[in-house]
């Protein structure tokens, strides 16, 4: 009858909660940045340049994570940088996912000429070196938040399309799809009702991975000075500036780097955790 698997309550998983906690904190910081940040992230004070973080000799109270060579507060800049990072992650990740997953689903389930066209497009697209492609795109579109988001969508949709196509194809060969077709369900109806729910766990994992990738891409573009205007603090920009003074003030480089690392890690772990929790086959 019902076997033991349904009786096992899966542990919620520490990684799901830890990653959700970190991302939640980051979202709050981003939303409330003007009120949460201890200092003005743009205020320079050359007398307070390269202050170390609070536990090191010579730290100044109020500057928890120290200051950069222009005397700007590192913590405040990280908090404000979260706005750009999360904006890019959420918007670019979601739009990329929608575009890529839709095309992949259509190609994998409808097959035929639709698949031919989309698959060739993916092949051609993936032959472009992504970093050069994005730099070229930004050069054409001009720097700015929306240019980054567009560049990420334009480059990364293939990541979703490829995986979702393969998955949809595998699901399409299952007998339950044949049964649904016999019962009279239309092609789009079958795709949405029978295929999509089974591809969804994969899409969620890819989406969270893509959010992490979007954060990294934004950081890389900031690093090469192609991101948004240099006035607004970004993690990539901070890392880039910190690199020049790594021997005198390691904290200017290390704190944004750690933040970036934790954020990307949290996104990927969130995806895996969600999959474990909500995939009915694994559950």
């Amino acid at each position, binding site marked *: 009858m019902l076997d033991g698997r349904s009786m096992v309550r899966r542990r919620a998983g520490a990684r799901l909660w830890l990653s959700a906690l970190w991302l939640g904190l980051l979202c709050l910081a981003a939303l409330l940045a003007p009120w949460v940040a201890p200092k003005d992230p743009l205020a320079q004070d050359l007398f307070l340049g390269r202050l170390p973080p609070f536990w090191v000799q010579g730290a100044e109270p109020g500057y928890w994570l120290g200051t950069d060579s222009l005397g700007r507060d590192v913590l405040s800049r990280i908090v404000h940088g979260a706005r750009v990072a999360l904006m890019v992650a959420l918007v670019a990740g979601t739009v990329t996912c929608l575009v890529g997953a839709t095309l992949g689903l259509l190609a994998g389930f409808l097959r*035929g000429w639709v698949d031919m066209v989309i698959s060739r497009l993916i092949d051609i697209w993936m032959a472009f070196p992504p970093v050069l492609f994005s730099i070229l795109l930004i050069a054409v579109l001009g720097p700015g938040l929306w240019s980054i988001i567009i560049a990420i969508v334009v480059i990364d949709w293939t990541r979703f399309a490829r995986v979702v196509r393969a998955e949809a194809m595998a699901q399409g060969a299952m007998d339950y799809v*044949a049964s649904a077709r016999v019962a*009279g369900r*239309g092609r789009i109806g079958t795709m949405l009702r029978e295929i999509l729910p089974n591809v969804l766990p994969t899409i969620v994992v890819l989406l969270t991975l893509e959010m992490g990738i979007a954060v990294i891409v934004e950081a890389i573009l900031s690093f090469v000075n192609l991101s948004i205007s240099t006035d607004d603090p970004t993690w990539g920009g901070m890392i880039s500036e910190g690199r020049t003074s790594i021997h005198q003030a390691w904290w200017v480089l290390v704190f944004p780097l750690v933040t970036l690392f934790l954020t990307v890690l949290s996104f990927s772990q969130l995806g895996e955790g969600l999959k474990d929790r909500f995939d*009915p*086959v694994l559950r």
Partner: protein
Amino acid sequence: MSFLSIRNLSVRLRKGPPLLRAVSLEVAAAQVHGLVGESGAGKSMIGKAVLGILPPSVEVTGGEIWLDGVDLLRLPARVRRQKIGATCALIPQDPLTALNPSHRIGPQITDRLVDILGWTRADADARARDLLAEVQIADPDRVMRSYPHELSGGMRQRILIASAFAAEPKLIVADEPTTALDVTVQKQILKLIGGMQARHGTALLFVTHDLGVVSKVCQRLSVLYSGLVVEDTSVADFFAAPGHPYSAALLAATPKYTDPAAGLQPVPDAVIAAVRAEVAAFDAGGAHG
């Protein structure tokens, strides 16, 4: 007139070899018609052609499929879908992939009734519960709330049988419904299908490679070799005296439970050569005509 009448149906791989060579067969209402043959003989392909679920790599090159007085192949796609949906159902081969892992059992049976045939939710639920009871599932309400992975293979095959009968179809294609199951479960499932078919008066197109199964559930059978029907006869006549050397060899190759010492008789090379010559002759004739 027969409920299902297939006339000279030819199917081939797109720009490839033929898979069905002018297949003709008749299935009367409430009759069970077996399709037997080796792997790749085209048994399943006939069922798929009738149900309109041929893979995209395969095309119908000629013939007619008359179902309930209309030629399916001449209907526009949408009308054909509706006709098939209203009169036919499928019992698939592999119960493990035939239920959608993302949906609970109840909706998988009832949603088609509600969405496509316009039943009310309450009627559909009641119908599903009755059918699950009919296929001897002890606790229908609980099973309807379960996901497929929570149930055993035999349970799932019972559910698929119940689901196939849900809309009271006139024709069911059973595509090797017992092949993926345990031998002990096979017998129960066969009895179940036979009983349901008799009670509901459904015509059954029964695809199998097991002649023992054919002798238990079918009234007529077609023997296929390489997409060619080599014999179409009643089951009684077939087991008494097969009308074609290939059928006789196939029958001789079936293990006999009553006499295990007899061993297995492979189909003789001469018989294979002869039936291949028939296929070649058909292809030559087809090319000229």
